């Protein structure tokens, strides 16, 4: 028995007391009323834009090292007992519903499907899957001739993956794919609906495993066990599901971080020497501009808002937007194909019980050229609630009486989804639109067009999931083609000509500005991104704390040639 198995469930994370700071009887992030407040004219050590996955981890880590940190967050400071509801339509306020323009040949529908707005960021209503990327994801260009190589490798993130997995904490079976590893918490029980998918996969020789999910399964400080109520995408009112709101921000507030919520960052201010002096923000539409001064600035607004903020921050030095000398800002934004296929059985399954994320497979993650395309996809169960199920039925072409008939059949269905790795392309990009938001700031426009490899991947994966359902005896099958997860848009790389930040996530051309969110990822693999975004922020924090992230040594900035950690399959 390995030491990690021996310690399953008992070894808590170090250097993070969030789980003990929460109150057993309330869902409130503790410390709002006693939070440190910094005078905006005083230069703090770090100002972070965005209290989401990346921004919160960075703030928590550096606050522990004594940095004075202010987080500027556009959305509200949640009071979950009052603000969050166990209801689909009533959760509208959780999402980033400010306007965005979508274009290209395959426009990506945003809103509730892609990003959040408020303290805790998008993870407040993410599903909860927390897989790691595979080692191969960091070098898809040299391995498969597609996508891009990262300036860092899996090795660089490994200790941070392990630390964040203990902090969330992640529950799941031992993981055989990518770099094989185990999880700190045991797998959750599996519902009848996921059981159908499980058996179908086994009949087809496809390995599925339970998890990995950032959902408490057992005792974890003051965070309760999951109650299997299935509303993870509406915000967990139980505090069982991980999000920075419960995993990092309690500890951050206890270490003197200030979260300035309801404040929309409008640009980054530069001084004569080209250093960032702070972040300009608006507290209300039409109100005065505020400037929070800081020695270092980190932007963590996610893949659409981070490029938008950079593009909006124009100056004499950067007329086309901050760090945009080479027209790289906003490019190579990515989503994942997320087609969902549902199967029907005679008996009731009631898929709405249990968290939507239950079991997954990475058997198809790596390139197998016999399939006719590069890279691959993962398979994961999901379980739409009634409005989500209605959208699924509609997408298969049913409305009126036919839709009502399928809806009445809801309890007989189980759903399995895929995540296809879609390739980074320069024309898939975020730009500024002519429309403005309530603050008068230009909104983002996101263009997306699938390439042939993307289309072949999506088509192939749908045949696999349909086959799994049929193998499990599904009588009828309904499919919805959709997309999920954002990444990229300000990617890290080895040279300013092909990237926005260096191997330390520091902006080319501005010495004290870092990006700390999902926008820096050059590829996305077929894994859900949140764990990797947190691990990247954790690594960045360690390097900012010891000063290595500020290195001007060209080799350090370019990163090292990827040292390959072998994938399990090799």
């Amino acid at each position: 028995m390995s030491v990690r198995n021996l310690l399953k469930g008992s070894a808590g994370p170090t250097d993070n007391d969030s789980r003990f700071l929460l109150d057993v009887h309330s869902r409130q992030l503790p410390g709002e009323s006693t939070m440190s407040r910094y005078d905006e004219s005083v230069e703090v050590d770090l100002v972070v834009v965005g209290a989401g996955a990346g921004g919160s981890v960075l703030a928590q880590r550096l606050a522990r090292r004594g940095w004075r940190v202010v987080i500027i967050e556009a959305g509200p400071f949640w009071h979950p007992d009052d603000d969050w509801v166990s209801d689909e339509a009533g959760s509208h306020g959780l999402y980033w519903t400010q306007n965005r323009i979508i274009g290209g040949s395959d426009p990506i529908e945003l809103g509730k499907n892609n990003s959040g707005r408020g303290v805790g960021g998008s993870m407040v209503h993410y599903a909860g899957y927390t897989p790691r990327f595979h080692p191969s994801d960091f070098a898809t260009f040299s391995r498969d001739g597609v996508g891009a190589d990262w300036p860092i490798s899996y090795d660089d993130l490994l200790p941070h993956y392990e630390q964040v997995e203990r902090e969330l904490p992640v529950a799941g079976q031992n993981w055989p794919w990518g770099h094989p590893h185990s999880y700190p918490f045991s797998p959750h029980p599996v519902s009848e609906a996921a059981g159908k998918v499980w058996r179908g996969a086994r009949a087809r020789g496809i390995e599925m495993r339970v998890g990995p999910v950032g959902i408490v399964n057992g005792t974890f400080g003051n965070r309760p066990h999951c109650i299997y109520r299935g509303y993870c995408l509406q915000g967990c009112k139980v505090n069982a599901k991980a999000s920075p709101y419960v995993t990092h921000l309690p500890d951050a507030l206890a270490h003197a971080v200030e979260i300035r919520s309801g404040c929309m960052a409008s640009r980054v201010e530069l001084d004569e020497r080209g250093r960032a002096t702070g972040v300009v923000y608006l507290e209300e539409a039409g109100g005065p501009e505020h400037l929070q001064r800081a020695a270092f600035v980190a932007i963590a607004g996610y893949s659409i808002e981070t490029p938008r903020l950079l593009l909006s921050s124009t100056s004499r030095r950067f007329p086309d937007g901050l760090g945009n000398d080479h027209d790289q800002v906003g490019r190579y934004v990515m989503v994942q194909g997320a087609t969902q296929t549902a199967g029907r059985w005679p008996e009731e399954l009631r898929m709405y019980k249990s968290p939507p994320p239950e079991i997954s497979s990475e058997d198809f993650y790596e390139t197998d050229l016999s399939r006719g395309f590069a890279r691959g996809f993962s398979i994961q169960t999901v379980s739409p609630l009634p409005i989500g199920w209605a959208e699924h039925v509609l997408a298969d072409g049913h409305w009126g009486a036919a839709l009502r008939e399928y809806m009445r059949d809801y309890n007989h269905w189980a759903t399995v989804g895929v995540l296809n790795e879609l390739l980074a392309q320069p024309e898939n990009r975020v730009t500024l639109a002519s429309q403005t938001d309530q603050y008068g700031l230009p909104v983002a426009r996101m263009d997306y067009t699938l390439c042939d490899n993307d289309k072949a991947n999506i088509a192939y994966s749908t045949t696999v999931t349909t086959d799994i359902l049929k193998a499990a005896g599904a009588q009828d099958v309904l499919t919805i083609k959709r997309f999920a997860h954002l990444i990229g848009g300000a990617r890290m790389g080895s040279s300013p000509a092909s990237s926005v930040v260096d191997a330390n996530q520091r902006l080319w051309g501005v010495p004290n500005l870092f990006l700390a969110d999902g926008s820096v990822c050059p590829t996305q693999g077929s894994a859900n991104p949140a764990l990797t975004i947190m691990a990247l922020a954790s690594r960045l924090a360690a390097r900012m704390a010891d000063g290595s992230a500020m290195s001007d040594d060209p080799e350090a900035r370019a990163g090292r040639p990827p040292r390959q950690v072998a994938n399990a399959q090799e």
Partner: protein
Amino acid sequence: MLDRDKGEHLPNLRPDRRPPHPSWLPRQRRGTTPQMIGRYPDFDVLDAVDTWDPATKKVVLARLEPAGPLRFFGPEEEPALRALCDVTTAQDREPRVPVAELVDAKLADGELDGFQYADMPDDRDTWHLVLAGLDHSARDRYARSFARCTVEEQQDVVRDLSQGALSGGTWDSLNVRRAWSVCMRAILAGFYSHPWAWNEIGFGGPAYPRGYMRTGPTSVLEPFETPGATAEDAAQAVADNPEVFG
């Protein structure tokens, strides 16, 4: 009687790919469903209200309050709006989920979805244009407004709307297929946010702080356990149960 277990009621499995007339369904005995039909005649999700948290209770029960009046749509648009909501959700008589009012409230409150297609106007403008377009197409085909058409005529127009196959009038300033998805997003979110619709489909509803304890019987074997011996032919059992032995 249709065989529910075989799925004989499912449009995709029927020779004409059309749904059966809802008269095969039992009448609701407990609680309310839209049109008093459903598959769970003795289920009323509202019986569980005392297991919901106060914030959720407030949001959900507000949907049962008397709906309207319309704030976003004008009186001249109301007939087409109601006809569209009825025909897309097959609500042909009372009791109805007040879909028109739920859509109206969302648009009046500016609750938009956070994206706008580059070739489309703001969702609010799209709604005005769609309702005008429905009347245009109905007049064009049947010489009367959309609301005055028979249900079959309305269905014909809506079928073309769903396939992006309408043109002329305001349709020419819209991507028609996308306009359909804009409208249906709001209509379905309204209909399936209503507890009566949950009764119809047997959905358990809000589940906090109660949660669920019976999530399914599959989790009997741990990954390291194997099934016990039985009287049947072992070789046959292995062949029959590849998912257990494979």
